[in-house]
């Protein structure tokens, strides 16, 4: 509302030019309220004849508009209640009388057609779109019909006890939207990326509206279930050697290093890698800590004996490969819950990072050549 008032006031200011682009944005709604307001302030204007020049009007009007603009900004948004609608209707009627006064016609017999003609005369618009031109219509006709209809509908539902505020939400946990390829397969036509993005946007919008659970079937058609991760782990059964000691093997890879581990139960915590002691094979503390992590996490530090063999990569990647191998070998000694904790700790995830390819025109994968200004 205040935006329209502001823009109308600016139109008044620029009225000698008769051509502004500002009016296009506002889409003229009720002028009545605006005129009524300014009529209230400068009440002298009523008594004075309608042949006042526009310059006088503009001088008076711009002051009042500014003052009122500030006031209205402080108040909150207006709600569509009965009082509000009544007020708007009153304002319209008063505005109609003012307009009739201005045009020098009889306020009692001022029809809607007369209103339209006078508005077109007072606010000439160079715009082509009919809806963009300033208009003055009775409130009942346009403005509040939709909102009132919605409220009537909701009242009817409340009467029938169908209006429940706590709408059921569609559970989206454990499922994902269809991928672009899957959607293409479903619709048997190619889709561009923009279209796919728009589709996802619209589906999300649908989910954000209330009562979306009514269309649950429709939405679920475009979602796929995610698989539970922990059930993917293949836990091999324990093997027993000739002395009855349980043992298991595991292998792991990290960044071109591969390692295999033979875990033996009821040992003393001795580890041999490629035949040598692990203190000599991994002089760096960090690598030994990597080996220690799975055992320490499950609290079985001194229980197992390990025979490892590793090849490829550098010392860090060999340590990482052995760590993964140890975790995998330990799975057969542990219970389900412990397997899940290990998975969540990230011990069972193979590290996918590898060396990035060097690109032509650059010195390395990311490093560019030295930039010379000339």
């Amino acid at each position: 509302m205040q935006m329209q008032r502001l823009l109308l006031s600016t139109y008044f200011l620029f009225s000698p030019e008769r051509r502004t682009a500002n009016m296009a944005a506002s889409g003229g709604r009720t002028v009545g309220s605006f005129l009524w307001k300014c009529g209230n302030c400068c009440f002298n204007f009523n008594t004075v004849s309608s042949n006042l020049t526009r310059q006088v009007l503009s001088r008076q009007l711009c002051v009042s508009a500014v003052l009122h603009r500030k006031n209205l900004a402080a108040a909150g948004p207006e709600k569509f209640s009965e009082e509000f609608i009544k007020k708007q209707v009153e304002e319209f009627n008063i505005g109609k009388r003012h307009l009739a006064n201005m045009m020098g016609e009889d306020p009692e017999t001022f029809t809607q057609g007369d209103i339209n003609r006078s508005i077109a005369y007072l606010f000439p618009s160079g715009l082509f779109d009919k809806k963009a031109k300033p208009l003055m219509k009775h409130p009942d006709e346009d403005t509040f019909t939709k909102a009132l209809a919605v409220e009537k509908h909701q009242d009817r539902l409340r009467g029938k006890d169908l209006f429940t505020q706590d709408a059921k939400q569609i559970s989206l946990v454990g499922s994902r939207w269809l991928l672009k390829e899957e959607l293409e397969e479903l619709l048997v036509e190619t889709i561009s990326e923009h279209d796919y993005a728009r589709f996802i946007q619209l589906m999300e919008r649908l989910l954000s509206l209330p009562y979306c659970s009514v269309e649950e079937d429709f939405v679920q058609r475009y979602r796929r279930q995610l698989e539970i991760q922990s059930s993917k782990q293949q836990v091999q059964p324990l093997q027993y050697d000739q002395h009855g000691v349980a043992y298991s093997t595991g292998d792991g890879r990290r960044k071109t290093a591969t390692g295999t581990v033979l875990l033996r139960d009821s040992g003393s915590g001795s580890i041999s890698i490629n035949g040598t002691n692990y203190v000599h094979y991994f002089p760096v503390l960090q690598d030994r800590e990597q080996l220690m992590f799975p055992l320490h996490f499950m609290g079985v530090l001194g229980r197992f004996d390990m025979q490892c063999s590793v090849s490829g990569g550098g010392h860090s990647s060999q340590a990482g490969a052995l760590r993964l191998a140890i975790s995998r070998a330990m799975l057969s000694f542990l219970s389900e819950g412990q397997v899940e904790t290990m998975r969540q700790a990230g011990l069972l995830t193979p590290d996918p990072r590898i060396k990035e390819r060097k690109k032509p025109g650059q010195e390395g994968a990311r490093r560019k050549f030295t930039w010379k200004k000339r």
Partner: protein
Amino acid sequence: MLLLAGPCFIFVAKPTEQHLGQYYTVPPSHFHTVFPHGLPPRYQQQVKTFNEGCVMVRQPALELISHLKRADYSKPTLRYLLYGVKGSGKTMSLCHTVHYCSTQGWLVLHIPDAHLWVKNCKELLPSSYHASRFDQPIQASNWLRNFRTTNEHFLSKIKLRQRYVWTKRESTEEGRPLGELVDMGVSRVKSSSDVVGAVLKELRLQAGGTEGGFRLAVAVDGVNGLWGRTTLKKEDKSPVAPEELTLVHNLRKMINNDWCGGAVIATLSQTGSLYAPSSAYLPQELLGEEGFDSMDPFVPVPVSLYSEKEFESCYLYYLDRHWLQHPHSQTEEGKKELIFLSNRNPSVLERLCAFL
């Protein structure tokens, strides 16, 4: 002598087998005299930090000491060789034995690291005594100075049996005390290597003698450096063989068992050795053929990593000295982690605890 059960530390002058795994303190006065140059650098730092020197009594040192007690000193010298993986405590055992010998009143000839003589030498002079050999003045004078600090009381007692001529004008007469020779070597740096040779020869001749009657202990650390290759080069860029160095030559003569009245205690060391793979620790690998033949026959003394009891004792010592500050290291779990990460290797454990 106190006898306390369990791994705790006591201050004993003469540790015996009952004190295996326990610590004994070296009195501070001994430190400067007995060990001016012998201790491992990290241990020296630890001594400075803790304001005391505590040595753990371990099996290899006790074995050596028992051998020394029972040996017959009229027969040619026995040679003992300490060997083990890197960081298992060979040098510390050697120092323990050296301390024992000095408390018993022996004359100790302690060469801290034979590798220092075969590498990183800035000055290499051609020897005046022998044309094809090379002198190392700096190393020789350093060693003589330390030798003087260690064996002050012997220097005046031992008399020279031969006349030594250094230059046209200088010579040392027969019957002069050894101290004078040593002083001359320290002051005249140019001829210090020859002085070293002379000192060694004198000691060798006089060690088993009935008059005077002192026992000589030759303690060499890193003995495998004497028979390998050197990194030193002559002026025409050809490599120098160890035999061409005066110091090495004389030391080799010392290690030969053609004299009596003492013992030779040696350790192998891979840490400072040249051209040896890091996984080598056995005598054959580190000494090489030539070295093994000249050392043969010897008494091998293996030095192993900490046993459970010894580890326990070391851990409690660090706890008592408040060296392990981290609260987690004082729990059982922390101890298990320490065992795992160090695999009970003494030097690795020490480095690990240094930042805890």
